């Protein structure tokens, strides 16, 4: 009874807060000054057909670097905590995997990997980008692990891919300071024709590295969780 009363009080409080937020809300027809500048100058300055990518990689590139770092930290923390408890390495009795899943995984896994790579290579043209593509690659790996639970993932390969792409991301950013307008400026390479694959300067290269890094980090988390299941 008292518990329900508390829940009711919390709900009323939340309602009051959100009411205050939404009661004087008016949707504006015009863009805010910053957004308007991005929308009008973006195609000329950055050359990316997907404006979201122009903002994420170039105008707010430092934020993206921070996000990738946070993801790296959480992957490292998951690896750290699961590794400590993974001492005895006991064998686990796998439930037999259904044939439908195994066959479907064989057909679908390459297609999913290809879709992920497509998404991050075309990040400057179509919706999506490094994060989305990396997550799709990692979900392809999940399907592989579900179909063959005894599969071992090579952590060395994942670490090498992740380190190289993280290093390359920062390196391209620093090159921008010396040869272009500033950190992570994409006009390092010529902008090319608007709307083609080889356009928007350094954005495709940066997004390929971001995609590889995110894919490696998420695969690392899933791989560690998979291995920690072996424990008795």
């Amino acid at each position, binding site marked *: 009874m008292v518990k329900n009363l508390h829940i009711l009080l919390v709900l009323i409080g939340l309602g009051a807060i959100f009411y205050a937020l939404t009661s004087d809300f008016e949707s504006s027809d015009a863009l805010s000054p910053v957004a308007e500048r991005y929308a009008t100058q973006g195609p000329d300055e950055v050359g990316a057909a997907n404006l979201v990518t122009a903002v994420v990689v170039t105008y707010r590139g430092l934020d993206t670097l921070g996000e990738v770092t946070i993801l790296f930290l959480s992957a490292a923390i998951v690896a750290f905590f699961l590794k400590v408890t993974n001492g005895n390495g006991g064998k686990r009795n796998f439930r037999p995997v259904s044939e439908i899943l195994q066959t479907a995984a064989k057909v679908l896994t390459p297609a999913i990997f290809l879709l992920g790579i497509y*998404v991050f290579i075309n990040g400057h043209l179509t919706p*999506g980008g490094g*994060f*989305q593509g990396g*997550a799709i690659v990692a*979900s392809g790996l999940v399907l592989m692990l579900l179909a063959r639970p005894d599969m071992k993932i090579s952590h060395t390969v994942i670490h090498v891919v992740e380190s190289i792409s993280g290093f390359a991301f920062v390196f391209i950013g620093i090159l921008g300071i010396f040869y272009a307008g500033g950190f992570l400026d994409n006009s390092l390479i010529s902008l090319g024709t608007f709307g083609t694959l080889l356009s928007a300067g350094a954005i495709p290269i940066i997004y390929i590295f971001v995609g590889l890094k995110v894919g490696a980090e998420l695969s690392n*988390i899933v791989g560690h969780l998979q291995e920690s299941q072996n424990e008795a």
Partner: protein
Amino acid sequence: MILKIIAIILGVLIIGLAVYALHAKKLTVAILGAGAVSLLASVMYLLLAAPDVAMTEAAIGSGLSTIIFFYVLNKIRKQNG
């Protein structure tokens, strides 16, 4: 108009699934409910003209985090029983 109707149906479904996930007896069903909430939310983002966010939500929210919840649930069950 038709988009508004679809959006309202989606919103009702999302809230319904979220409440169902909270009250489900079996934890596996609750995890699947939470994953379905993410999937419907990604359709909602698509309706709101944010395909980039929709892709992230579909891949991470309903794909990877559901799997991670299952792994963790399996591990907790093994340690408890």
